[in-house]
């Protein structure tokens, strides 16, 4: 509780305004939690109970077999090992992709907003336009290109693809964050003789911690949840968890086991969820403010 240092007055007692504030938050929380509630109760029901179609009803008996099946027993094709097989692949793809793209994005945002070399706005415009292309269109040419440089169906290949497709998003966020940094800060440092990289590493990066957290969270989620790129570029040995999730959930003519589907979905989301929860301490106000004053 005391980890955060919010601005404004410290409330000494519950005023009408505070009550209204909490009421708003609680109602909003209910809206956000309702689907999760439905998912969790569905995952704990048997299929016979699910067929009755009462989606908000509590399960008559708790049945966790769907969770076990989802994790270690669900079939995809002739292999029945659940979604756990993709777990480490997802990590191997996501962690380097996030680290690389966040670093490049921070450098880009910093260079584009505070240095503005020749062509900066052209590049930024290009990235934004690129970010608006439905990425399915990229598949054919990218597949050919990756095959030509021998990176198709490889871990390095899928990481490269994620970094490239992440560029518009990360660049945009960092650029708009650094734009609001006081110009004087950069100027003063330059007068002191600091160069491009020194200002970046010693002043800008520490200052941008909340934004780095946000961008990493977004990139992590986006890449972790990506299905199509992983399916097309990663190759059989590196398929991410979402491909297994799709194999469990998606079917046209096969029977559906909704309880397993729900469990598998929640299991797939657990890592990003944990990151959201644990990132709390990085939202502490003061890190940024300190850097600005320094």
């Amino acid at each position, binding site marked *: 509780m005391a980890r955060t240092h919010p601005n404004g007055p410290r409330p000494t007692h519950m005023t009408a305004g505070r009550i209204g504030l909490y009421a708003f938050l609680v109602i909003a929380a209910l809206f956000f939690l309702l689907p999760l509630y439905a998912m969790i109760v569905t995952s704990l029901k048997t*299929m016979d109970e699910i067929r*009755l179609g009462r989606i908000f009803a509590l399960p008559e008996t708790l049945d966790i077999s769907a969770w076990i099946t989802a994790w270690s027993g669900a079939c*995809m094709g*002739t292999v029945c090992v659940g979604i756990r097989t993709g777990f480490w692949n997802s990590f191997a793809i996501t962690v380097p992709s996030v680290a690389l793209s966040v670093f490049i994005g921070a450098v880009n945002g910093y260079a584009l907003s505070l240095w503005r070399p020749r062509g900066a706005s052209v590049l930024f415009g290009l990235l934004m336009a690129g970010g608006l292309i439905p990425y399915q269109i990229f598949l054919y040419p990218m597949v050919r290109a990756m095959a030509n440089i021998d990176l198709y169906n490889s871990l390095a290949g899928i990481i490269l693809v994620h970094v490239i497709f992440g560029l518009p998003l990360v660049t945009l966020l960092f650029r708009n964050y650094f734009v609001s940094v006081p110009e004087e800060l950069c100027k003063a440092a330059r007068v002191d003789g600091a160069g491009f990289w020194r200002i970046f590493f010693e002043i800008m990066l520490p200052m941008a911690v909340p934004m780095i957290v946000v961008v990493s969270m977004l990139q992590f989620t986006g890449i972790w949840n990506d299905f199509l790129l992983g399916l097309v570029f990663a190759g059989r040995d590196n398929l991410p968890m979402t491909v297994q999730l799709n194999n469990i959930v998606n*079917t*046209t003519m*096969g*029977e559906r086991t909704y309880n397993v589907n729900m469990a598998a979905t929640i299991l797939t989301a657990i890592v990003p969820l944990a990151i959201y929860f644990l990132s709390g301490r990085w939202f502490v106000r003061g890190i940024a403010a300190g850097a600005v004053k320094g």
Partner: protein
Amino acid sequence: MNKKMKLFLAGVALVATLAPVHAEDKPTIEIMSSWTSGGESAALNVIKTEFEKRGGVWKDSSIAGFGAADAAFQNRIVAGDAPGAKQGVIGLAAADFVNQSLMNPIADVAAAGKWADALPKSIYDLISYNGEVYLAPTGAHGESWVFYSKQAFEKAGIAEEPKSWDEFFAGLDKLKAAGIVPVAWGGQPWQQTKVFNMILLSRVGIDGFLKIYVDKDKSEASVEGVKKTLEILGKLRGYVDDGAAGRNWNDATAMVITGKAGVQFMGDWAKGEFTVAGKEAGKDYGCMITPESPGMVYIADSIWFPKTANAETDNAQKLLAEVVMDPAVQLEFSLKKGSVPMRSDVDKSKLDVCARKGLELMTAGNIVPDQAIVLTPQQVGLLDDFVDEYWSSGSQDAVSGAENFFSIFE
């Protein structure tokens, strides 16, 4: 083929030859299928087990969902890294791949196994392109089925299966009066198109159906048939519940299983849901062919064999083709998947009552192909659009609807 295309394909072939060749003693094959649900997976396992028994090595690359599987497969081809086998429907969807020499024929296996004698002629023709056999059929699904809840029929006082559309609608009225949802409707385009086809077959007969879809015939009789079909389809709107739009077929099946709804129009894969719920065909639920229908619409799955520029894989492909068409495998596969075997010489006694009905129609040749077999993927999409638009707009104008129908062939 134009020059650019040749260049493109040459590039594909070049990349393929550069791909590392795995030196393995046993015939190894990577198979891409979209069979991932319980019954499908078990059925695929039948083929795998036999393939391994005969010395093959099986690598599974299953991707669920037609869209995702197609995307993955097509991109593998573009990258020059085609898998050794791919599961797909027989018919025009494979034609483009064959015509661009991206697939291996399996004519010698077919000749040695006397496939021409074992398969219905229409199927044999559909797996052959330019006179050579390219696909190994796994099984067929009947798509002219009406599944009904015996419990609901009893409650509504329907004594026997309705034979005509008039009787059918009278039955639906009784179900409605008994407070039961008459039709468990899955309001997704592909499901609706299947219902459209079932009705169409009952209105125009087998020859009329083939005339429309194969010859793209727009004669008065064809237009009239489509019109009558749309009238029945339109009438069905009055018998579905509020929640029909966008519903998955298995949610609709669940309504029949629990007795909330009376009937469902669906392919025979719906039996899988009944079986999982512990219901038995002929006892808890019934299966009848669409009223007044002279036969059955079917869709057939097969294994495709893409070119891989790897002699080892070519051998594995031949072995796989043999295994797929093995009589015992055909039967066991269909039992697991709820489909109908392709070969007419299998032991019928093990099949359930619905599958037996289906196999009878099949061996008698009273079958017509699903649109996915005879239309290009593009036309299939337009047909889905057409039926969905008619259904969900609530249009009563079957006359101009029937006119519009034929624009999908343009």
